[in-house]
């Protein structure tokens, strides 16, 4: 168990190092160099030289990378050229909105995806099975921006029951004291239930838009994995004991079928972080995605570096958690093989 986790940690460390190298080199792949990119082509040579000195671009490459790594380890991503704020502060400001959206989308996709998968598997070959699987195929095939726009059209325009932009109505925005940055938590902490309901309403459409594709994938994965497990001899053993069907499925089949589903969930998280950029754009969601897009447009090198590195670390963290969940689900990982 311990060595398994140690191995996971080490491999994540190596992956992060690789990502940091890519992110670092990104700056040097821009035509001209970073200073030109920032100051524009009409900048004076003097200004460029000063900026290069400030950014350390005149030092040898390995020196620059070492300094970059050193700073990153100390959570110092430098300052944004655009806002002059430390990048880490910007991330802190924008991240909660994205986290809220991503977590909501994830909860939505896991909850409904697994449920649909189980229903389809248990009622295999019936109308329910075909129905839920066709719906999920449609879900996978749907472009995210099209789905978002359709939802807005349907629920904000024709049936104006849900808001389509932002995290809160503007009137309420000033009302909410930001403590954690998660509006759902903040509003509850302050007992501001009007704002809470409003925040939930704002979250629904973006979360559905972002979560539909993962939901469909999780549903299909759950179904096929559960069907495979239901054919295993130990399921027959469980029935032979006289256990009722729901108990066999809930206890004996579910846990075994969850390993591939967990893998998919971990990988889907990466998709959610990427999809958030599009979704946030559609719904004017003030999150990391919108911020990162703006940083790319403004050639804000430090901000992009910091943002990408942050998102990559987050993705790996989630997959580390998935690895630990494997160990929880599967005793063959947790308890060493001592069979003789």
């Amino acid at each position, binding site marked *: 168990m311990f060595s398994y986790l140690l191995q996971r940690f080490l491999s994540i460390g190596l992956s992060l190092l690789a990502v940091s190298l890519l992110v670092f080199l990104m700056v040097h792949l821009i035509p001209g160099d970073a200073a030109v990119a920032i100051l524009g082509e009409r900048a004076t040579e003097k200004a460029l030289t000063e900026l290069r000195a400030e950014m350390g671009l005149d030092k040898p490459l390995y020196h620059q990378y070492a300094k970059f790594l050193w700073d990153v380890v100390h959570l110092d991503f430098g300052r944004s050229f655009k806002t002059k704020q430390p990048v880490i502060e910007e991330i802190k400001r924008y991240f909660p909105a994205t986290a809220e959206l991503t977590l909501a989308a994830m909860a939505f996709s896991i909850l409904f995806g697994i449920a649909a998968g189980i229903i389809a598997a248990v009622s295999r070959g019936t109308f329910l099975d075909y129905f839920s699987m066709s719906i999920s195929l449609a879900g996978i095939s749907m472009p995210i921006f099209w789905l978002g726009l359709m939802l807005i059209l349907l629920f904000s325009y024709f049936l104006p029951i849900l808001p389509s932009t932002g995290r809160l109505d503007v009137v309420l925005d000033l009302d909410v004291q930001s403590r954690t940055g998660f509006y759902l938590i903040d509003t509850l902490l302050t007992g501001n239930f009007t704002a809470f309901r409003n925040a939930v309403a704002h979250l629904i459409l973006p979360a559905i838009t972002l979560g539909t594709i993962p939901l469909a994938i999780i549903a299909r994965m759950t179904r096929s994995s559960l069907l495979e497990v239901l054919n295993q001899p130990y399921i027959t053993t469980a029935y*032979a004991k*006289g256990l009722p069907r729901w108990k066999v499925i809930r206890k004996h089949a579910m846990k075994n079928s969850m390993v591939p589903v967990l893998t998919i969930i971990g990988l889907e998280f990466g998709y959610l972080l990427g999809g958030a950029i599009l979704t946030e754009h559609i719904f004017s969601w003030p999150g990391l995605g919108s911020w990162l897009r703006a940083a790319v447009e403004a050639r804000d090198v430090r901000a992009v570096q910091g943002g990408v590195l942050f998102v990559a670390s987050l993705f790996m963290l989630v997959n580390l958690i998935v690895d630990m969940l494997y160990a929880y689900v599967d005793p063959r990982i947790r308890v060493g093989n001592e*069979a003789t």
Partner: protein
Amino acid sequence: MMSPFGDIKAYLGLCVNLKKFRFSQFPLTFHKILCYSNPMDDTLLSVQNLKTYFRTPEGLARAVDGISFDIKPNEIFALVGESGCGKSVTALSLIQLIAQPAGFIADGAIYYKGQDITGLSEVEKRKIQGNDIAMIFQEPMTSLNPVFTIGNQISEAIQEHQDLRGAAARNAAIEMLDRVGIPEPAARYDEYPHQMSGGMKQRVMIAMALSCRPGLLIADEPTTALDVTIQAQILELIQRLQQELQMAVLLITHDLGVVANIADRVAVMYAGKIAEMGTWEQLYETPQHPYTIKLLESTPARDKRGTALNTISGRVPKATAYNDGCRFADRCPKVMDGCDTIIPTLHAVNGSEHSVACHLYNPEPPFSVRLADPELAIQEHATVVSATKLELETEVVQQSERVSEQPTASHPQLQVKDLCVHYPIQKGIFKRTVGYVYAVDDVTLDIPRGKTLALVGESGSGKTSFGKAVLQLGVPVEGDIVYDGVNIATTTRQQMHPYRKRMQIIFQDPYASLNPRMPVGRIIQEGMQTHGIGASDEERQTRTAELMLRVGLSPDMVTRYPHEFSGGQRQRIGIARCLAVDPEFIVCDEATSALDVSVQAQILNLLKSLQVDFNLSYLFITHNLSVVEYFADEVAVMYLGRIVERGTTEEIFDAPKHPYTRALLSAVPKMDTQTGVEKIRLEGDVPSPINRPAGCHFHPRCPEVMPVCKEEYPGATHFTQTHSCHCYLYRDAE
């Protein structure tokens, strides 16, 4: 049991099981009351005219088609038959676990303690499952849920049927684990299945099945996946618990030897019906049904050496295409007009418990036949058998004479010297080697030209690794492999190429060893192309057709794909593929282990005649000792990577020296129960080849262990030119 309403019955059965018409329950119940009766005597389980059908894309598969038998309390009743005969489906029908919605019980009644359990509701059914009727399965490796502790899985059954919770359920489970002979049951309660060996897992399965003290235990091939010494332990355990707990056992197996040793009564099944039923002595000594007779004859044994095995022609009919009469009719040597249209029913033989379903013995035959006198039939049969034996014997002798006239080289075909296969165990991200699996260790062997050397041993003994090492098939090899005077252990890939043609292998699994996307013709021709055999494609095609004829397949099947063939036919394809490149030496790695007895007999006959025709040398790797006894010229016994004893087949089987060889031979279930050979029971499991016991690797299980055995591996003692053994018992024998 013949009812004039046969068709109506089937129709009603279908209605009920399609769940289309609920009200059709009433006529069915009525029909049942009319046709089947609750046995009033002490019968525990009474199966009456059971029909279990499956809807398949090819049509209705009549897997079990009208079988009737009774099981008394405290009795071990065995159902035997080859794969597909419906024995497992019978078991699943009894415990109400037929796969829905494809399968259903179309007709018949199953009375358990006087209650018909076929029409029970889900809730009532579950009260029987696991509580009154419990079941253990063939694969202990996959029959336990890997993500729960074994204790959890046993207590679960207890809690489902008894009023025990928490610590009480735990204690009941621990007591049961103790009963099935698991050491330190309290500690092992919290272990997971993957931490246990196969034999231990089957013990856990038994503990789980018996935790609610069922009246009937169904054991579906309980020892088929286990090694022979472990099989002996498990069979003994089932027998002991059957006595202790006063329960009945329905034993399902294909292994006649297993049946002979423990069953009180035996039913032989063929194609969904019971062919013959009686005690083992009755079936073995005076078999009546032509199928039973053929089955017994096709089982390899010592006294059939040098003769071809008597095989059954043709193959088992498909369950979707049974004829209306006796299903054995088209394979039966004694078939009469009318056999394939009128179903034979069970008739008592000489008024005893022995009964047989064959028109030959029907006292009131439905068509005009010369009724056979059972005694006469047996005598007649015996003369026929000995006549064919004699014929074949002379043929084989003639053939071997022909062979011996050929000039033979002085050196053996293959000489292996100090061969080691040590698989490194790598751990961590840097793949540091932390140890070795000592699969094969210091093995020295030679195989003479045109002879068969059998390599026997239990799983994990290294016999398959040895076979792969000899052929240089991707295993790390140290030592010398001298083939025809050339050491091939040190050759490069290019240098090895010509030897690939001369040395071939036949695999165990005829299903996985043929590429499913290649037609048979291409599978056979591929090797010829690689080795440049045959000048043109036409020539190769002609040769393919010849080869297919030679192995007993029709040449017009060349364009078919492997999945269109039966297991035995696929093994024939494998053999044709192997012969296509004109090999001299063939490794048969458990070549017949996946096959049914009657099919195995066909393949063994084929291998034998090919050996004579082409002067082939075989390395015959197997765990099946009765095949060895019949087939091999010399035997080497392997235990944990080392050869513990080797000699000619006569030497090994008549005068085994090593305690392991003796235990192994005594553990093999014999069909003849009166052999009087003392059983030697080995305790425990084969240790891991990673941490082998120091000294003689067998010493922890050896009944004759001495202090010296724990110190150093014993050297070889030679009894004759051919017979040698590694054991300290014979230190001074030379």
